[in-house]
C-alpha cells in the first residue's frame, strides 16, 4: 500500500471519528459537553484532596499538584480506552458498517489507528482546557513558563503510541466478543491504569504485589515523565522514565499488530465480522 493511500485512509478515518463523536449536535453544545465532563472529573479529585486535608493529617500542597496533573493527563488514557473498546461494537452492531470498512481498500489497522487518533485529538483539547481551568480558576500551582515543553511533547508522543497500542488490543478483542459486556472492557482497562500507574498517588503506597504490577505497565513511566515535564524537571531527571516507556511502547506496538492480525483471522474464520447480537 502506497504511503499516499495510507495517509488518505488515516485522514479519512480521523475525520469519520470526529463526525461520529461530534455531529449529533451544534458545535457550541458539543464544546460545552466536551468541557463539562473532564472538569467535573477534575473537581472530584480536587475535592477529595480538600476533604482529605480537612479531616486528615497530610496537608502537603505539593500533593494537590500531583493529583491535579495526574488526573488531567489521565483524560487521554480514559478517552482512548473507552473509544477503542467500543468502536468495533459501534461499527459492527450499531451502524452496521464494519463489513463495508473491511471490503474497502483501506488497511483495517490504519482505520483503527485513525479512529484512535481522532479520540486522542479531542482528548488533548480536553486536557488543555482542564489545565487552563485548573490553573486560572482553581489556582492550581502550575507555572506554564517553567514547564519543560520539549520533554512534555516527547512524553506525549511516545505515550500516545503506547496508549493507542493498548487501544488497538482492546479493539482486537472486541472483534471476537459480543456487544453486551464488550463496552465495559475499555473502562475496566482504564481503571487498572488509574489504580496501578501512580495517577493519583505514588505507587509506593500500594501493597508489594500491586507495585510489581505497576512496574510492568508503561503508563506508570509515562505518568512519571509527564509529571516531571510539567513541573519543569531537567532532561536528566526523566530520561530513565522515557527510556523505559519507549522500550515498553515498542513491545506493545508490535504485540498490538500481532493481536489484531490474530483476532482478524479468527473473526473471519468464525463469521463475526457482521454479527449482530440483539440483546
Amino acid at each position, binding site marked *: 500500500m502506497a504511503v499516499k493511500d495510507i495517509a488518505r485512509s488515516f485522514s479519512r478515518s480521523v475525520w469519520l471519528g470526529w463526525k461520529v463523536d461530534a455531529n*449529533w*449536535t451544534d458545535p457550541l453544545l458539543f464544546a460545552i*459537553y466536551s468541557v*463539562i*465532563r*473532564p472538569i*467535573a*472529573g477534575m*473537581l*472530584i*479529585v480536587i*475535592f*477529595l*484532596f*480538600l*476533604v*482529605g*486535608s*480537612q*479531616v*486528615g*493529617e*497530610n*496537608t502537603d500542597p505539593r*500533593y494537590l499538584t500531583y*493529583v491535579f496533573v495526574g488526573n488531567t493527563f489521565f483524560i487521554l488514557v480514559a478517552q482512548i480506552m473507552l473509544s477503542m473498546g467500543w468502536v468495533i461494537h459501534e461499527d459492527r452492531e*450499531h*451502524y452496521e458498517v464494519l463489513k463495508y470498512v473491511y471490503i474497502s481498500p483501506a488497511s483495517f489497522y490504519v482505520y483503527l489507528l485513525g479512529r484512535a487518533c481522532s479520540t486522542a485529538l479531542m482528548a488533548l483539547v480536553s486536557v488543555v482546557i482542564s489545565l487552563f481551568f485548573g490553573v486560572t480558576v482553581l489556582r492550581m500551582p502550575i507555572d506554564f513558563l517553567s514547564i519543560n515543553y520539549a520533554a512534555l511533547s516527547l512524553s506525549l508522543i511516545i505515550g500516545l503510541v503506547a496508549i493507542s497500542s493498548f487501544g488497538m488490543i482492546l479493539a482486537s478483542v472486541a472483534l471476537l466478543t459480543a456487544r*453486551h*459486556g464488550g463496552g*465495559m*472492557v475499555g*473502562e*475496566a482497562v482504564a*481503571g*487498572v491504569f*488509574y*489504580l496501578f500507574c501512580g*495517577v*493519583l*498517588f*505514588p505507587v509506593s*503506597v*500500594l501493597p508489594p504485589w500491586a507495585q510489581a504490577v505497576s512496574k510492568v505497565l508503561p503508563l506508570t513511566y509515562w505518568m512519571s515523565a509527564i509529571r516531571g515535564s510539567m513541573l519543569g524537571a531537567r532532561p536528566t531527571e526523566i530520561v530513565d522514565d522515557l527510556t523505559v516507556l519507549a522500550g515498553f511502547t515498542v513491545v506493545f506496538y508490535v504485540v498490538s499488530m500481532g493481536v489484531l492480525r490474530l483476532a482478524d483471522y479468527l473473526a473471519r474464520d468464525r463469521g463475526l465480522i457482521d454479527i449482530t447480537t*440483539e*440483546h
Partner: protein
Amino acid sequence: MKAVTYSGDLERNLRTIVARTYVRIVGSGREPSWLLWDTVLPMLTLSTYIYVYKVMNAPPEFTGFVIVGGAMIAFWLNVLWNMAAQLYWEKETGNLEPFLIAPISRMAMLMGMAIGGIFNTTLRALGIFAVGIFVFQVEFLVADPLAALLVFVLTLAALYSLGMVFASVFLMYGREAWHTSHLLQEPIYFLSGFYFPVKFLPFWLQVAASIIPVTFGLDAIRRILILGAGLGEVSLHVVVLAMFWLVLFFIAKWTLRYMEDHGRSEGRLTLRWQ
C-alpha cells in the same frame, strides 16, 4: 367481544411487570461477565479514591463513604443506561414497535425494567460492599436496620422514577439523549457527593445538589450505615425522598404520554441511527 375492565387492565399490567422483570433478570444471567465487570470495574476507581484518603491519613469512615458511594453509583448507572436508555435500545433493535402496539401501560413496562434492574444491581452493590468489608476492612454500624431499609427503598423509588422521566426523553431523541446520559455521570458524582460527604461542598453547590434525589438518599444511607444514625436523625431525608418519589412518578407518567404523542406526530418512534 371481551369487555375491557379495570381489573383486566390491572391484571395485564401486573403480568407486564412480571414479564419485563423476568426478562431483565434472565438476561443478566445469560451474560455472567456483566457481574464481574460491574463489580470489578467500579472497584478499581473506588480503590484509587480510597488510596487517596489513605495517603492523606483521613479517618477510616471515609473509606466507608467511598464504598457506599460506589454501591450507589451502580444504581445510578443502572438508572441511566438500563432504565433511561432502554427505550433507545429497543428502538435501535426494532423492539419498540411491538411494545407500543401492545395493550399495556408504558409505566408497567418501565416498572418491570426497574424491578429487574434493582434486583441485578443489588447483587452488584452487595459485591462492592463485600470488597469494602473484606479488602478494605470497612466497619458498618447499623443501629437501625429498618431505617436503612426504608431509606434505601425510598431512594430507589425516587431514582427509578427519575429514570422513567429520562426514558421518555429517549423516546424522542437519539444520540442527544445518549450523550446527555454520559453527561449525567461525573458531574452528578461530584455534585451528589458520591466520593465525599456533600456537606464539604460550598453552600451554593449543596443547594444545586439538593434537586437530585440521590444526594439525599446517599447522605441518609451513609449516616445510617457508617455513622450509626437512627430514623429520627434522617427523618428530613425520608420526607424529602418520599416527595421526590411522588412528584417524579407523576412527572414520568405525563412526560411519557407527551413524548410518545410527540414522537408519533414527528415520526421519530421508529427512527434508527439518529
